[in-house]
C-alpha cells in the first residue's frame, strides 16, 4: 500500500483546518475591533 496519499491527506486536513481557524479568528477580531473603534470615534 502506497503510504504517501495517507500522509498527504493527513497534512492537508491539518493545514486546512488550522488555516480556517486562524483566518476566522483573525477576521472576527478585526471586524469586532473595527466596529468598537468606529463607535468610540462617534
Amino acid at each position, binding site marked *: 500500500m502506497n503510504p504517501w496519499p495517507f500522509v498527504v491527506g493527513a497534512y492537508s486536513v491539518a493545514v486546512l483546518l488550522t488555516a480556517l481557524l486562524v483566518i476566522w479568528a483573525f477576521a472576527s477580531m478585526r471586524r*469586532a*475591533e473595527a466596529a468598537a473603534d468606529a463607535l468610540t470615534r462617534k
Partner: protein
Amino acid sequence: MHALANPTRFLRIAKPATDWLLLIGLALAIGGMAAGLTLSSPDYLQGETVRILYIHVPSAWLGMAGWGGIAAASVSQLVWRHPLAAVAGRAIAPAGATFAAICLISGSIWGRPTWGTWWEWDGRLTSMLVLFFLYLGYIGLAGAERERGGEGRIAAIYGLVGAINLPIIHYSVLWWRTLHQGESIGLTGSTIDNSILWPLPLTMIGFTCLFGAVVLMRIRAQLAETKVEARIRRMSQ
C-alpha cells in the same frame, strides 16, 4: 492573574503577543511540517506513515491542553469570579475542538495503512471522540448562556465536570490495552529514535503558539463585541 482583570491592561499585553505568537507559530509549524515531510527518517516498521506523527501528536496535546485551559478558566470563574475567565473559556473552545478534530482525523488516516482500519472503538480513540463532543457541547452551552445574559457559571461547571475525561484519555492506553500503542513520549524521555523525533518539538511549539494566538484573537474579539454592546445599550437608554 488578577492583574490582567483590567481589559485595558490585558489588551496592552495581548496585542503585541498576538502578532508574535502568530509569526513564531507559523514559522515553526511550517518549518516543522516541511522537515517532517522531507528531512526526517522513515520508521523501519511503519515506513513513511510515521510522518503523520508530526501533526497528530501536537493536535492531541492541544485538544487536551485546551480542555485543561477551560477547566482552569472555570475554576478561576467559580472561585475568584475573574472577569476574563468566561471570555477565556469561550475563546479556547473553538481552537480546542479544531485540534481535537485534527487529532481524530489524522489518527484515523494513520490507522488505515498501519492497523488496517479507519476506526476502532478503542479506549484512546473513543475518549478522544468524547472530548470532541464535549467541546461541541461547551460551545453551544457557553454561547446560549451568553446570549441569555448569564455569567457563564453553567458552562464553567460543565467545563469542570468535562475535565474528568482528561485523565481517562491519558491513562486509556494503560487501562485498556487494545489497538492504540502505549505512551512513547513522556516527561523523562522517548522511545522514538532521535532521527525521527527531532521535527516534533518544532511542530509542538509552532502549533501551540498558533493555538495561543487564536485564543488571544478570540478574547480580543469578544472584548470588542462587549464594548460595542455596552455602548449601544447606553445609547438606547
